[in-house]
């Protein structure tokens, strides 16, 4: 093990895959000569050359679409979207083309393509640079979605995303980029679709992912609540067996995420839990999510909209004591 930041861990995962398979290549804005806005691709162009680490113009729809063509031509493209907010200008390519191609072709073609991006708030980046948009992509059959919460998982999941024969959206959180953690040296791989128990407990199950794992841990500090925390890590495919096992054990569930509540992951999980495990539940399922407003700029406003340890604590109280 060695200590690395989240960014260094992804860099290490990318190098691992670039070394393993010469069909892997990266494309995106400012990733080659500059080394990436957040330094995720630092040093890669020097190591692998400018035909495997390709700088693109600010043309998200164009280069995401090109990644599809390259994937169909036998490559394993990794396209970096500097901010997940910018995915919205490439939505036709992601939703209509990339996600559907394998199905529409009756399985004749595969789309081994990874989109690496970062999202999330808490930095005063305002409404167009602070979003978590994972729910939009969960509405589209054919694309996998992962949201790592720590450096080791970031390395292992980026490797799994690249090796997968399907489109995968890999979402970093901007609050986590500089966070350090122990990362396995050498080959490291975390399978898609496996949730992780962050801590075991008996009083309630908290399902969360990305930066909210940290917020949930902070919310529980000093409360004495014996909560079980699950880091979902992968939202599609979803680790339903892990979720069901935990709900059957604690009989109470809370879902915490940073994206908006309406039609989001919390609402979806709550529906599945109550449909399949209604008799197991001792209390209504709780959801703690962003308010349904755009993300405001000023801190006192952003604090109200995004989940915080204080808001999560209240949500835990609600699930435990009504």
């Amino acid at each position, binding site marked *: 093990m060695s200590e690395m930041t989240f960014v260094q861990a992804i860099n290490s995962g990318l190098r691992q895959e670039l070394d393993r398979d010469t069909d892997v290549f990266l494309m995106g804005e400012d990733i080659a000569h500059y080394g990436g806005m957040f330094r995720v691709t630092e040093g890669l162009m020097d190591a692998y050359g400018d035909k495997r680490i390709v700088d693109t113009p600010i043309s998200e729809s164009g280069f995401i679409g090109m990644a599809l063509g390259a994937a169909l031509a036998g490559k394993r493209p990794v396209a970096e979207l500097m901010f997940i907010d910018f995915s919205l200008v490439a939505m036709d390519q992601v939703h209509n083309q990339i996600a559907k191609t394998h199905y529409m072709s009756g399985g004749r073609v595969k789309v081994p393509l990874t989109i690496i991006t970062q999202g999330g708030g808490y930095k005063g980046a305002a409404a167009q640079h602070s979003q978590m948009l994972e729910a939009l992509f969960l509405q589209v059959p*054919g694309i996998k979605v992962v949201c790592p919460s720590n450096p080791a998982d970031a390395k292992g999941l980026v490797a799994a995303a690249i090796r997968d024969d399907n489109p995968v959206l890999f979402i970093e959180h901007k609050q986590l980029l500089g966070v350090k953690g122990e990362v396995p040296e050498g080959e490291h791989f975390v399978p898609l679709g496996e949730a992780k128990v962050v801590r075991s407990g008996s009083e309630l199950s908290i399902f969360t992912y990305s930066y909210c794992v940290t917020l949930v841990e902070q919310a529980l500090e000093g409360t004495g609540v014996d909560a079980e925390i699950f880091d979902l890590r992968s939202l599609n495919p979803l680790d339903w067996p892990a979720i069901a096992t935990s709900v059957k054990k604690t009989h109470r569930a809370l879902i915490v995420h940073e994206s908006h509540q309406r039609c989001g992951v919390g609402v979806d999980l709550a529906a599945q839990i109550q449909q399949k495990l209604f008799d197991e539940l001792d209390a209504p399922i709780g959801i703690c999510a962003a308010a349904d407003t755009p993300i405001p700029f000023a801190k006192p406003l952003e604090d109200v909209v995004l989940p915080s340890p204080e808001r999560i604590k209240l949500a835990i109280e609600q699930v435990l004591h009504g």
Partner: protein
Amino acid sequence: MPQAEDFYRQMVRLRAVENELTKLSQTGQLRGSLHLCQGQEAVPAGACAALRKDDYLTCTYRGHGYVLAKGLDLDLVLREILGKASGLCKGKGGKMHLFDPEFGLLGTNGIVGGGVGTAVGAALASWIDGKDQVALTVFGDGTLNQGHVSECFNMAALYKLPVIFLCENNLYAEMTPLERSHGNTDLCARVAGFGIKTDKCDGNDPFLVYDAVHKAVERARKGEGPTFIEAMTYRTIGHYQADPGTQYRTPEEIAQWKEKSPISKLEKVIGNAAEAIREEEENRVSEAMQSALKQPDPSPTHALTEVFA
């Protein structure tokens, strides 16, 4: 260099397919929209003759002519258009979503301009690996007004990618004439602004289309970058089955272009041999269609498979 008979065969086969599909559409035996390309047959016939089997191709929803001219199996294509289990894509794609990697076909497409990035990306793969496969993407004049396509023009020029942008200028973007949808109707001039070599040809002459595409393919294989070709042509039929095509065009204009139909033009060149070729193709297509109609429908359980590889 293909002969007149080869082009003629491709064009009458395409026309025969469209005639069969029209009959099925009118009798309710064909689901979905039907976008035909009557009058434009010379462009696919000429363009695909200049491509290798392993060259990449993306088309529009009006792309079945290219699909057939690229060499795909007629039976598999017709079965897919009819939504049959034994179709090219097992009935999941339909006419607007035909794929066959064996022939470099990376998709017909339901979104205007949607497949242009795919072709440029396939060309990028060739560029990265130093291969000589080229990509051809075909679209209409209306597609030049899609932002995605401008992004693709720029990147093709920037990296000097082996891609051919083939524009079928049929003077109408769906039902809207060129002069009411383009600030500058000189399409070559617009694309030249990206630093892309441009060429313009008579799209109703398969030999001229072949020449233009052949030259562009040679340039691309030599690493000399992309070419934009504007093939002037005309859709003598409506945009789709419910559009007679007469509300926005005069009968005189349509009649004038019917006279310039590439099929009748080439008939005059070939002479007596034309009739035999046409009959042969009509019979072949009719038999394939009869056989396709008898194929089993997909199993309902198959709807839920192949979301992921």
